[in-house]
């Protein structure tokens, strides 16, 4: 390689890697972004984006062959024909389940920024203090005020739509006009407000689907097709491709290298700094080394930790950051798949137009204010109301023209919501290297040993019952609670394993996301999370990444790195 030195290397191109690349290049650094999978180019490579159900050979359904090829992915909804190829090849990249763990990965340019849920909420003040107050795990080294201006910053650029509700539990941000609630949701919101006397709220989901265009960035507002996971040709939602990558490319400071699996952080034990990275080309198996002044590790929570575990093992057997005894520990996710659904009477003269890619949100109300439960922390609900379509159960309709006519018209309104609960950081919930098993490139794989504990199990009782109570209070009919069972990983919100903290003896990263043992290495994806909150985490990764990038460049200028 002629030129293998850069100011900064970014490992990974997903939500946080894209932000790292954008921030560092815009601040003038020459940046190499390494992506382990193939390139996916904005618009051009969204090959299914304009397809309809009838354009797929199986109308979008999963085949037995797909089920055979994706033994993990088949366990849940992401395995389907339209998004095929957007999930990691499980045969090439296996992992070990000491306990069942559903790991849904995306090894390609943009990572899971193309297939994320897009709900974008801020952690609140309490989220950053709860560990300390309750004596759980370790204290966050930062407070809400440290992150708040960075939330402002990333929200403005990413384009988040949402309402400002003035709630301490769910701080307001810099939002575009919210996506509207429909007539049923509005009335339910009003009834909740009345019944629960302002203690519970139903608000429009805050989502990275834009309601206003961003012409400067070549992005159009959401067109309400609800095909986000196919990549949006309008740039209607935030992804690396629609948002951060073009900004980084525009600076002329970015180099992107796909098919680059980073196998190791090269560590200089005298200077106690990283020198660069070793890379294996995923296609040719050739190996390369790249060097840089600073390194941003944004490979997704578990893969970032995997990389640390594989680095500097001549000094620390457990890898870079393992001196804390916490590397790989404190795995968190959001536990969910529990809630309630109900029928709605009336509103027969109303319908909906457009396929809104978001819904409503009920912010946490448990263990908030004067409320005290037999568990700590809380949960929020995500849901929506709509009229039933042709797929409804019409057993009594039999067959023939009557059936056809009946289901060609919309059915009753129905409403449902799912709770997303906070999972506590627990040292015993961990991932580790299993060197007896290797992936396609001969690299050791991760083993998962994670389960929900008593606090989550107690919380789940409220997660179902409160949903039932809310719908009954709102006058809904035939209210049914449900628990579809939850296994760690299903939230696709894996967090922890390289937590931030105040003490190198109990945390992997400091308050600026620097690895204590290599201050020029920053980990700013979900691995850094000290606690999980109950809100969707990606917005926080964006904010922490922008904050850490700003700090890193200042430190470089001062000659500290």
């Amino acid at each position, binding site marked *: 390689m002629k030129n293998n030195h850069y100011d900064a290397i970014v490992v990974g191109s997903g939500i946080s890697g894209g932000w790292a690349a954008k921030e560092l290049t815009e601040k003038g650094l020459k940046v190499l972004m390494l992506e382990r999978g*193939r*390139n996916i*180019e*904005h618009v*051009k490579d969204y*090959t*299914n984006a*304009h397809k*309809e*159900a*009838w354009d*797929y*050979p*199986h*109308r*979008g*359904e*999963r*085949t*037995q062959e797909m089920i055979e090829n994706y033994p993990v992915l088949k366990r849940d909804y992401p395995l389907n*024909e339209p998004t*095929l190829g*957007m999930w990691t090849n499980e045969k090439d990249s296996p992992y070990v389940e000491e306990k069942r763990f559903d790991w849904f990965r995306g090894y390609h340019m943009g990572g899971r920024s193309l297939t994320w849920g897009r709900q974008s909420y801020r952690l609140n003040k309490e989220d950053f203090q709860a560990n300390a107050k309750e004596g759980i795990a370790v204290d966050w080294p930062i407070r809400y005020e440290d992150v708040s201006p960075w939330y402002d910053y990333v929200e403005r650029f990413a384009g988040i739509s949402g309402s400002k509700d003035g709630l301490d539990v769910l701080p307001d941000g810099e939002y575009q006009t919210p*996506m*509207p*609630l429909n007539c049923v*949701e509005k009335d339910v919101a009003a009834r909740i407000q009345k019944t629960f006397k302002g203690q519970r709220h139903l608000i429009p989901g805050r989502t990275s689907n834009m309601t206003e265009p961003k012409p400067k*960035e070549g*992005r159009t507002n959401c*067109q309400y*097709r609800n095909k986000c996971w*196919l990549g949006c040709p309008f740039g209607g939602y935030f992804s690396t*491709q629609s948002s951060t990558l*073009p900004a980084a*490319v525009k600076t002329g400071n*970015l180099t*992107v*290298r*796909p*098919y680059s699996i980073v196998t190791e952080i090269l560590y200089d034990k005298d200077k106690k700094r990283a020198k660069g990275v070793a890379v294996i080309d995923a*296609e*040719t198996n050739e190996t390369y080394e790249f060097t840089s002044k600073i390194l941003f590790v944004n490979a997704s929570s578990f893969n970032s930790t995997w990389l640390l575990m594989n680095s500097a093992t001549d000094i620390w057997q457990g890898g870079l950051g393992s001196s804390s005894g916490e590397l790989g520990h404190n795995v968190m996710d959001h536990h969910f798949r529990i809630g309630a659904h109900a029928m709605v009477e009336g509103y*027969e*003269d*109303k319908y*909906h*137009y*457009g*396929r809104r890619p978001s819904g409503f949100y009920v912010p946490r109300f448990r263990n908030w204010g004067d409320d005290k439960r037999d568990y700590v922390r809380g949960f929020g609900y995500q849901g929506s109301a709509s009229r039933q379509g*042709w*797929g409804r159960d019409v057993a009594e309709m*039999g*067959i*023939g*023209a009557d*059936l*056809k006519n009946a289901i*060609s*018209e*919309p059915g009753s309104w129905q409403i449902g919501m799912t709770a997303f609960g906070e999972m506590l950081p627990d040292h015993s919930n961990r991932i580790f290297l299993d060197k007896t098993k290797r992936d396609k490139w001969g690299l050791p794989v991760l083993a998962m040993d994670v389960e929900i504990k008593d606090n989550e199990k107690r919380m789940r009782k409220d997660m179902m019952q409160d949903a039932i109570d809310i719908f009954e209070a709102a006058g809904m009919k035939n209210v049914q609670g449900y628990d579809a069972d939850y296994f760690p990983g299903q939230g696709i919100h894996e967090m922890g394993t390289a937590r931030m903290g105040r003490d190198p003896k109990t945390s992997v990263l400091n308050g600026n996301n620097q690895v204590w043992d290599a201050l020029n290495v920053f980990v700013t994806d979900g691995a850094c999370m000290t606690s999980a909150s109950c809100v969707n985490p990606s917005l926080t990764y964006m904010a922490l990444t922008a904050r850490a990038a700003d700090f890193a460049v200042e430190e470089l200028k001062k000659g500290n790195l």
Partner: protein
Amino acid sequence: MSMNRRELLKMIAAATGTAFVSANAMAYVTLPMKTVQETAFSKDDIAFFNEVGEVIIPRTDTPGAKDVNVGFMMAVIVTDCYTAPQQAAFKDGIAKIKALAKSTYGKDFLLLSNDERTSLLASLNDEADVFNTKAKLASKGVKDAEKPLPHGFTLIKQLTLFTFFTSKEGATKVLRYVAIPGRYDGELPYKKGDRAWAT
């Protein structure tokens, strides 16, 4: 869009010397449409499925099952998406229709009048409802994956509805579909008779 493709490609090429592989490898996976030969069924089978489907979703002032060739998509989905037990249940359901036509009318199903076909399938539909209700009660508390299969006719009916309403004609001529709605209205006025959205 704003991303400068050429610039990006140039940078990648400069850094790596790696040429991109085929265009397909860069994109979401797109699979080819299936042919009759790739299914486990014959043209005659598919014609039969269409006739059965037409009784379930007949042509009225809008297209029916036969118009959109549900039989072909049923064959594709049973071949590729169904498990072996589901395939057996589906085939059993088809065999039952044929046998019932013989035992009730002494004729092939295809030689029955429309009224006879409707009456025959309606009786099977009733039988299926009773069967499914019993099975549901018996398997209460059993996990979804371990629940028994529904009656064979239920599979045929579900497949007919699915392949019909996900077809272009079903979605756009029987139901309503707008590819790019452009906005969301949560209080759209509705009057009885207005068609449902396809999705």
